């Protein structure tokens, strides 16, 4: 039982080690190693979850001989463990779902490099989840940024190179702001360990000393991470990089990479600055407004789009808006709703990207809606998966999107009327806009038409069908058994602070 304490550290080191080894292997073995490692991380995270759930407390694990603040440490409770488990499941499904496309779109000579990037990305996500030290978080934010760039540009064409450049520029501005905020925070508190910073910040807040640097640090870190996770006015890098990269990359980037940064932001809210001080600084109101704008404008851009992949990418902007809107409510219920939406969006968005790729395959690789007409009949599994994903995004009961919407609505009722009304109105408008573009697509793919494109039976690619069914199950489980998951999030959040 005690050995389970080591598993978060093992999973971190394992994925880093696997990426180093992958760089010397050929593509085939790198792929096998990668699938083994991601599954092993999933199993280890499940064990960690079991361990924290049974003992019902969080653990601090020192990395090395010296305890923090001198050495490094990681800290895990229910929330971290369930996040790591969920991330590894989505990662595995995304890689398996886009496997066939990797062979075509990535130079076989560079295939092992893809898995190097994936493994390091996984390790950086795990580190962002587990770390209790701001500097470690920054180091892994760097790894995350660089590997995400690599994932975009490994499909070498003009679009992806442009998208990767744009992503890198925006992302580096975000990293820079984060580093800047971190430096200010270190200068006024003298610590890098999250719990020590929080103590010092509480002291500073009471005495009122260094008030302006503190506020500037909060703003810089908030804006930096908002840029990196594509909150509304900073989303210009997003549609190209999700729309043109290879299917697995798009699924991973949209569902995991941006969520890693959001999780770090939650960590900063709760563990570094303290929830009350953030609420006092009115950062939540800013996030609230931009979240609402994102919900509307992301959907409007998605409606205008004539390319299915870019449409799904713009829908991500709207969904990220939901998450920030939940933060903006500034209550615990809002935070729980946001965290549930992180799960729900990650499960649904990766599913939509994988399904969209199946549909475009059945339409001669074209992503235009005109060619996709009737694609739901030509590739039945992908069509069904896309429909489930769309229904979930729109917020139809049974699926995960419904639960997150109802949680947002419930959370908004308990705050003051000047936040409740905008939330409910924008939720309603955004749901209608979601329905317009997703249902338009569903109707389009189930419109019968005589087409020259051949039908793709599910037997042609069994693993793809299995992945699609797993995605559907994952989504329905999130939608139907939401109660235990929300309880887990609630208890995790209680341990978190």
């Amino acid at each position, binding site marked *: 039982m005690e050995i389970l304490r*080591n598993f978060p*550290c093992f999973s971190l*080191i394992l994925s*880093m*080690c696997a*990426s*180093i*080894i992958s*760089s*010397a292997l050929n593509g085939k073995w790198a792929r096998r190693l990668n699938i083994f490692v991601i599954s092993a991380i999933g199993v280890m995270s499940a064990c960690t979850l079991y361990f924290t759930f049974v003992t019902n407390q969080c653990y601090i*694990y*020192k*990395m*090395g*001989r*010296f305890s923090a603040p*001198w*050495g*490094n440490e990681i800290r895990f409770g229910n929330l971290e463990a369930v996040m790591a488990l969920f991330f590894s499941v989505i990662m595995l499904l995304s890689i398996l779902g886009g496997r066939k496309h990797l062979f075509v779109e990535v130079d076989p*000579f*560079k295939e092992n*490099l893809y898995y*190097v*990037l994936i493994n*390091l990305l996984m*390790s950086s996500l795990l*580190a962002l989840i587990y770390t209790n*030290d701001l*500097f*470690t978080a920054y*180091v*892994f934010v*760097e*790894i995350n940024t*660089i*590997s995400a*760039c*690599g994932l975009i*540009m*490994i499909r070498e064409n003009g679009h992806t190179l442009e998208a990767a450049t744009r992503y890198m520029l925006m992302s580096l501005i975000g990293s820079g702001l984060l580093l800047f905020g971190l430096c200010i925070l270190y*200068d*006024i*508190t*003298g*610590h890098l360990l999250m719990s020590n910073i929080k103590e010092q910040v509480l002291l500073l807040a009471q005495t009122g000393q*260094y*008030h*302006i*640097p503190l506020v*500037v640090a909060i703003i810089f870190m908030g804006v930096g991470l908002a840029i990196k996770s594509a909150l509304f006015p900073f989303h210009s890098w997003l549609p190209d990089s999700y729309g043109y990269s290879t299917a697995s990359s798009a699924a991973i980037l949209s569902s995991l990479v941006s969520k890693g940064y959001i999780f770090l932001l939650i960590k900063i809210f709760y563990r570094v600055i303290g929830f009350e001080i953030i609420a006092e600084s009115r950062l939540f109101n800013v996030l609230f407004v931009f979240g609402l704008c994102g919900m509307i404008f992301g959907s409007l851009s998605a409606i205008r789009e004539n390319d299915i992949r870019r449409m799904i990418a713009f829908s991500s902007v709207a969904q990220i808006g939901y998450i920030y809107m939940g933060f903006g409510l500034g209550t615990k219920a809002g935070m729980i709703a946001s965290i549930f939406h992180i799960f729900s969006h990650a499960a649904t968005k990766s599913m939509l990207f994988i399904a969209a790729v199946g549909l475009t395959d059945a339409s001669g690789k074209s992503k235009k809606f005109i060619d996709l*007409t*009737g694609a739901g*009949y030509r590739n*039945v599994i992908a069509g069904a998966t896309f429909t489930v994903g769309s229904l979930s995004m729109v917020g139809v009961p049974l699926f995960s999107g419904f639960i997150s919407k109802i949680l947002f609505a419930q959370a908004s009722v308990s705050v003051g009327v000047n936040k409740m009304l905008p939330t409910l109105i924008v939720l309603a408008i955004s749901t209608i806009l979601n329905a317009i573009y997703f249902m338009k697509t569903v109707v389009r793919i189930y*419109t*019968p*038409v*005589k*087409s020259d494109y051949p*039908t793709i039976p599910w037997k042609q690619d069994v693993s793809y069908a299995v992945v699609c069914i797993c995605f559907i199950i994952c989504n329905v489980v999130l939608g139907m058994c939401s109660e235990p998951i929300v309880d887990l999030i609630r208890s995790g959040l209680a341990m978190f602070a």
Partner: protein
Amino acid sequence: MSRLKNDEEYAKTGAFRFFRWMKGTKDPYLDEVEMQPGVPYRDSLTLEEIMAQEQQTMEKVYDTETNKWIAFFNKVYSVSSVLFCLVLAGIMLYMVACLPRFGTVDRPINNEVSQVYIENGIQDTGAVNIVTGMILNYRAFDTFGETCVLFIATTCVMVLLMKEEEKIRADKSLNDRRFEPKNDVILQNVAFVLVPIVFIFGIYVILNGHLSPGGGFSGGAMIGAGMILYVSAYGFDKMQKFFNEKTYKVVKVAALCTYCVVITYYLFMGANDFNNHISLGVPGMIFSAGIILWLNIFVGIEVACTMYAFYALFRRGGL
């Protein structure tokens, strides 16, 4: 497969309709809904024509002579961006003025953390150079992360620029020595003298990382610079006699894997409070400070490989 019902009855069941839909043999709409057959929309323009059209439109839209709004917007945009930068700079300068004064004793960063590093550093890590002790022993995990940043940076450059060996040989445009004087005697003679010195100094900095200023990162950068000097004087053909892609892979992966194993052992033993059997030795001796010497060597190899790989990849798309 045998069924209880005959075909006619089976055709009325939901299961039959479901499987028919699954197989896609019949459209559920076909008889009920009257639909226009989709007209396949294909424009007969070629890609070049589309691009030319697009460019024409863009030129028209962004022509500031005819479109006064664009001219106005451009002006407002440049003015407001300058204003925004000035405001941001103002806020940051004001913020810096509010920070603790530089060099005073009672700054928050002069706390128990740095005190322990300075007072107990030598006993805890065995390294005379406290900074090295800090980054490679106290905060060893962060430094492993940093090394992985270098590793992934090389991987990304490889994704972007790497070419297969045959392609490099076949593609004459990649041969960048066309534009340079071949076998520059001055450069070669200088490199002949300098390269060994640079190498030896780099190795010295790495091996003395725990005793004097320096360490894996700076020493590795020196060795990398020495390799770049050698290759620019003598060309890739000579370099490949002792350092080709295969050696690069072997050296780098071996160094990083050993690093990984050492660090895992160290973290696991340390976290569970087991005795890790690493003797710290006498501070000041070359073989002291436990894992630090070895980690410095691994970091040095990784940094040198990264430096050289960047240069080689940018220059010819391969090592």
